[in-house]
């Protein structure tokens, strides 16, 4: 981007006037919220790592029996693709290709988000089947505190996409709606960033012991 960025995430550009200038402080504020969310995730990661050892597992099922790496890989690709489709939605907004193209990219992102959640829930069901429930050991308590926390964030993101689709249809592309889509974009890309930590530390790291 040749022009100066006013805020994190895709900038709409000067021709969007009020929506672009208004986004500066609002998106910065939202960025501060995301950074505080990052601190929460980071500390939950730290508490997970303190019990990711034989003592923490307390003789319960280990990562090898409970995790399905193929499914995790599929979830990773789905979530990464949803980041790309969300990027296309915000690009469509930036270049004013119309409500229809923004909405269709958002719908694709929504379906990818739901697909991710469906696969994750199936994995969770498998873990419950093999006895890897939160009350089994410190390790599983920490796992269920970390990975579903990300899942809940994705669920909220999906609901937010639905709300934005409704507002795009009813309110149209007014500055307020544009800025909300931009914030949702930051949130969505941020969740993909957290997922990189989850698949690297929890799922791939779990295979190493």
């Amino acid at each position, binding site marked *: *981007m040749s022009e*100066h*960025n*006013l*805020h*994190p*995430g*895709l*900038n709409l550009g000067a021709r969007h006037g009020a929506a672009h200038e208004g986004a*500066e402080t609002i998106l*910065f504020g939202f*960025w*501060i919220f995301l*950074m*505080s969310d*990052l*601190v929460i995730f*980071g*500390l939950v*990661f*730290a*508490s997970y*790592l*303190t019990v990711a*050892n034989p*003592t923490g597992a307390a003789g319960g099922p280990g990562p090898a029996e409970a995790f399905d*790496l193929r499914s995790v*890989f599929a979830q*990773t*690709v789905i979530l*990464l*693709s949803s*980041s*790309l489709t969300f*990027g*296309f939605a915000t*690009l469509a907004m*930036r*270049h004013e*290709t119309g409500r229809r193209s923004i909405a269709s990219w958002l719908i694709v992102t929504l379906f990818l988000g739901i697909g991710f959640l469906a696969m994750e829930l199936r994995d969770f069901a498998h873990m419950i089947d093999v006895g890897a429930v939160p009350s089994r050991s410190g390790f599983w308590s920490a796992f269920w505190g970390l990975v579903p926390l990300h899942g809940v964030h994705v669920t909220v993101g999906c609901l937010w996409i639905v709300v934005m689709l409704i507002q795009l249809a009813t309110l149209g592309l007014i500055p307020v709606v544009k800025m909300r889509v931009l914030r949702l974009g*930051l949130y969505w*890309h*941020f969740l*993909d*960033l957290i997922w*990189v*930590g989850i*698949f*690297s*530390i929890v799922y*791939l*790291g779990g*295979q*190493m012991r």
Partner: protein
Amino acid sequence: MKDPDHRSEARLYLAGFGLALTLTLIPFALVHWALLQGRTLAITIAVLAIAQIVVHLRFFLHIDLSRQKREDLQLILFTVMLLAIMALGTLWIMGNLATRM
């Protein structure tokens, strides 16, 4: 997508996606076929994860080293510093306790 700017920006997103996908495929392949073990594997996964996070920040969140009006990158670095103190401190203390048990 008639606008040439639109097309080149979409290509940047695709480039970011391709890079991130590669950085995802490598660690999964390393673990799946057990190409590396132990410490080397852990370090490789960590380096690839950090590289992927940088790719996400650069291509999807548009955070780079150019001067920005608001110091978004500084805020990330400050947050990471807080996290380093709290998270690494936690791991250090708990690891120390574990060796004493």
